[in-house]
């Protein structure tokens, strides 16, 4: 997990600055390596293009000191280490001259710098502010929140089927992530041009992905889950079967589509629209509109149509529904088809904002669980509320905490909600264990 969110603009800029800093060091030290025998650890300290001189740097191996040096007038420093291995490199913060500042004041020690037995190892201590003319706090929070709403809606769309299937059949489907991946992979194949696929436009390819997802869902219900229900297989056994199915499908994807991330042919890069403090990519706006439209349609279907009423009847009590003349088998088949098609749509939308990859579904599986449990298992409106809450919380947490903890926050919220209100925000009290 962790890569499913587009890096913030500030972070991208930061990476660019880093790349610019490393480039001169790379050029310079390749000649230096030839001068001394054995490998060395080296680097160049620069802040906004100005070299940082006189900074003390110490290299240790375990608890054994290896060498100490200070950066010269051009900011370059180099410590020969003699042999390959793992070293700790520490920068003495007190020796930094006035007017210079580490980008991350706490990152003065690099705990495990791996040096090969030949060639120099370049390490980097970034200086300066990551983005001096960055957006105001309000703008940043607003854009994070919109990013969170977009991600939350995608999660809700992908996860609502998880909740529908649980409601009607009692199955907690650990293979749901692979159903999300399926839609995205099919859409990628239909969209890819050149030798990879037919190269159809993304709108058509996405539709094919959704339809193929629905067909897979129907096939899985007819070929696997219906026979298992007939044998009255228990909940836990069904969960384990779904785990086996997930493992199977995921690695088949890996064999066929290989491991590298792909993107769709269209809409991969776009200029953002700016609306006052808000800056949003056109495709993100489309994703938000499409998700809301589909989720509202699904809600109306469930509330207003005969089919929806039947689905809710099966969710409440399958036996009672059956005896009232509802064709439970057919309803469950419909639920599987719709759920998997929606999962596929979620996968296609996720693929337009991030990469299409064999394990993209696995990476959002726990987030989807978090969304449906947060909203209340079995309640499709709950999945929407849960998705939005999870999306916004995990994105906005990046304002105060390092982005490394984004998913951890989403899962932490899940655990806390389960402890305080196990039935979820919109769940029914009787579902509590």
């Amino acid at each position: 997990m962790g890569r499913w969110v587009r890096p913030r603009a500030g972070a991208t800029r930061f990476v660019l600055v880093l790349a610019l800093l490393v480039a001169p060091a790379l050029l310079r030290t390749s000649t230096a390596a030839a001068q001394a025998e054995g490998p060395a650890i080296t680097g160049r300290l620069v802040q906004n293009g100005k070299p940082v001189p006189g900074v003390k740097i110490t290299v240790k191996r375990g608890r054994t000191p290896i060498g100490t040096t200070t950066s010269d007038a051009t900011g370059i420093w180099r410590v020969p280490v003699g042999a390959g291995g793992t070293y700790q490199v520490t920068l003495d913060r007190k020796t930094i001259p006035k007017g210079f500042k580490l980008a991350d004041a706490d990152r003065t020690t690099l705990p495990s710098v791996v040096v090969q037995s030949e060639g120099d190892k370049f390490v980097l201590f970034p200086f300066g502010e990551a983005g001096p003319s960055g957006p105001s706090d309000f703008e940043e929070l607003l854009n994070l929140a919109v990013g969170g709403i977009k991600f939350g809606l995608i999660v809700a769309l992908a996860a609502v089927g998880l909740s529908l299937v649980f409601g009607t059949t009692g199955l907690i489907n650990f293979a749901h992530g692979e159903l999300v991946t399926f839609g995205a992979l099919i859409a990628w194949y239909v969209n890819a041009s050149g030798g990879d696929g037919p190269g159809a436009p993304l709108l058509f390819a996405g539709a094919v992905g959704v339809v193929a997802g629905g067909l897979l869902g129907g096939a899985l219900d007819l070929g696997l889950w219906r026979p298992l229900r007939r044998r009255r297989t228990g909940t836990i056994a069904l969960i384990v079967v779904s785990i086996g199915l997930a493992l199977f499908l995921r690695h088949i994807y890996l064999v066929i589509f290989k491991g590298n991330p792909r993107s769709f042919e269209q809409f991969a890069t776009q200029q953002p629209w700016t609306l006052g403090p808000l800056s949003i990519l056109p495709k993100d706006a489309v994703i938000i509109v499409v998700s809301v439209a589909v989720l509202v349609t699904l809600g109306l279907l469930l509330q207003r149509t005969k089919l929806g009423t039947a689905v809710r009847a099966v969710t409440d009590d399958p036996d009672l529904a059956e005896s009232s003349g509802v064709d439970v088998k057919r309803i469950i088949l419909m639920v599987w088809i719709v759920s998997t098609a929606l999962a596929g749509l979620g996968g296609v939308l996720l693929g337009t904002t991030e990469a299409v990859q064999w394990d993209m579904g696995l990476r959002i599986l726990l987030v989807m669980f978090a969304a449906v449990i947060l909203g209340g298992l079995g309640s499709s409106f709950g999945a929407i509320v849960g998705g939005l809450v999870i999306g916004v919380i995990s994105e906005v947490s990046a304002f105060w905490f390092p982005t490394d903890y984004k998913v951890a926050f989403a899962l932490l919220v899940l655990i806390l909600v389960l402890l305080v209100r196990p039935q979820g925000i919109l769940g029914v009290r009787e579902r509590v264990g």
Partner: protein
Amino acid sequence: MDFSQALVDAVRAAVGVPAAAYALAAVGLNLQFGYTGLLNFGQVGFLLVGAYGTAITADHGLPLPLAFLVGVAAAVVLGLILGLPTLRLRAEYLAIVTISAAEILRLVVRSRPLEGFTGGAFGIREFADAFYNWNPIPSGEYGVGNVTFSDRTLWVMLVGWTLVALTSGLIFLLVRSPWGRVLRGIRDDENATRSFGKNVFAFKLQSLVLGGSIGALAGILLAVDAQFTNADYWQSIFTFFAFTVIIIGGVGRVIGPVVGSMLFWFLLQGADTLLQQALADSFFGSKLGPTEAGPIRFALVGLVLMLLMIFRPQGLFGSRAETLIEEP
């Protein structure tokens, strides 16, 4: 195809260190899932805290035996933190809380702010030199026929399988004690057990903590064997492999995890070698190369797990009466 090479590789894998570690993790999981009916999907979290507890302590220069104790103690603490609030929830919720907790742990030890402590994405290396200094086996190669191991590997294997034997013995005695009968009572009918005046919650918690501590031993064993631990080592897929192991061997059988782990590794490695050969010979056409052997064998694991659960849920040596398969 060279079947003798596949056989040698498979036998090596079946008795190797990873097989011992999977067996240990599965012994703990079997206590929780097989005997108590707890759906712990976060067993890998216990392995993680065991490995990191040991590695961080030893990395700070403290003696290795103390580091081992810290690793196990960390698992006890994790078991209490997870169990106290969640064991009152129903089985599926416990599953989702435990898998989420394991994932949170993995993300946290991987995160950059903790790099000075956990090594972040780089992990911690070379912390168990003392363990190899204790190796009493004279250096050399030992083995039968083509199946040989270095003295270093043999020493880790010896310790690993001894731990498997000790913990399996402990479980054998425990499940035949009155304590173990209560656990099985909880698995078969929690309400009936409660109506006998048993504190079901306390028994579940003890089972979770003990099983998790055995899992921590598995984590320590793997980390010491590699002299390395980093966050990506402890993915949730490990827990599912451990489930596959006990389902192959037989749920709720003392010998189940041991037989299951040896068979799991025998089949996994045997299939791997055969697939590599077949793919190198372009047996399946030119589109699939030898690198595809890894994913194909994991797809096979998934298929085997599904088929076993559908057609023989009690595993090869389990008894149907001891397995939670059908709706009551």
